[in-house]
């Protein structure tokens, strides 16, 4: 059975997160079956709250956990 799909285009009546989510998915080339949109929107809203928790007051010197080390690079080359 073919499932219906939803795109962001022609979706101007939808509010807030749903239009944004569908726009981002469509930009990535992903088609979302219509019956999956409500569940994905719940997850998207959870992720939006999580993204806010990532942002803290920190200085520019606060570096990510995956900063290169020479040892890591050399370990790869040594194979």
């Amino acid at each position: 059975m073919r499932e219906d799909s939803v795109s962001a285009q022609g979706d101007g009546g939808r509010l807030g997160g749903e239009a944004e989510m569908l726009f981002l998915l469509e930009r990535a080339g992903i088609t979302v079956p219509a019956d999956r949109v409500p569940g994905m929107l719940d997850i998207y809203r959870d992720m939006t709250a999580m993204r806010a928790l990532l942002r803290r007051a920190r200085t520019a010197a606060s570096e990510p956990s995956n900063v290169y080390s020479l040892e890591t690079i050399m370990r790869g080359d040594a194979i």
Partner: protein
Amino acid sequence: MILGKALHELSIAEAGTLLRSGAVKSTALAEHALARIERHDPTLRSFILVARERALADAEAADQDFAAGIDRGPMQGIPYALKDIYDTAGMRTTCHSKLLVDNVPATSSVVEQRLSAGGGVLLGKLGTHEFAYGGPSFDLPFPPARNPWNSDCVTGGSSSGSGAAVAAGFVRMAMGSDTGGSIRGPAAYCGTVGLKPTYGLVSRRGVFPLSYTLDHCGPLAWSVEDAAITMQVIAGHDPADPGSASVPVPDFRSPLGLGVEGLRIAVPRHFYAGAPGASREVIDAIDRTLEDLARNGAVVEEVRLSDYAVYNACGRIIITAEAYAIHEQDLRRRPLDYGRYTFMRMALGATLSAADLTQALRLRRELAIELNKSVLGSFDALITASALTPAPRFDAIDPATPPTVQVQTMPFNVTGNPSMSVPIGLSRDGLPLSLQVVGRPFDEPTVLRIGAEIERVTGWTGRHPELP
């Protein structure tokens, strides 16, 4: 029966002694396990593939080695099974997905190579949540595994078949993988031990990735000792795994039985005691266990970490971004070949920004420092909840939305510390309760030592479900 036990009740150490004395044959262990699987797995659905011929050939080879005086190590002659994301040369590896349903790898994962070289007996491949992510689902090529304590309940995931197979006594040990709790969650729900080792201690090579920087390989086992024995075989540097650490492999069994006298144990009670939905039975069982450990000489003190939600957000964003990067092309080209839940969660990686991931990685460093310097700088270990509730029922899952699992395992994927789920009792409904022991990086021996003491004080070892 031998030593007053059925063959599947023998610990790996007991079976090893009997195998070496000739009192038990590996072929007898394998045939016993295969018969149990044939009888009970049609209900439990833990196996995707039962490798009968391979198992019997492995067992025969082990028996011949014993007869010839060849000793390949503590797993020689012992049946085990692998989550179906571990590559097995010439044997199908599906990731429980339609996308890989015919995938037969040419080479085995490093873990499988080490277990096989150690004389282990591979019984087959175990169910998982699809790509170790979505589930439990009923729209995949294979049904989800069911909890041996109550087959109406989920096993937890994603190492769902591993949890079920070990709890059911099909194998003493099954390999799982853990990106946000996928070893410790099923271990908690199924009443087994589940050890997520330190990031880098066990090779990930040949295991289908979910999230490169959060994936860990480790065992689910009937007992802490069984897990320790497994670690002795699978741990060690792999120069071809870029995440592998070149560190000495300790003796994992030697600290078992030393007790907890003088050990300092931190407890971030705020993680679980006030968590929405946390079961009173779980909280009370953890409190009782901590009191027992204190009575036996541990120094137990409450500590404060960043909120659990912060650790969880950090891990969730990294998983979503990395999983999406792996599946980007297939999500575009074959979206409906993924299970509903997998697609719904994975595709949302497309909505994250580069800044989101970078902020998560900055936070990850901060949280690792918080745990390892602020807490484990002055404590030997930390104890917190594993699952916040006993295993939920299948009929409690809303088919429209991927289920949210009530486990608190993510922080230690974010920080990479060793952590182990240990059973501590049963709920009023007869379902396992558990807690989580966390150690300093590469200090698995202390984690196992505390786990063994928890088994002793709770009297858990030896409790197993009546199978349907």
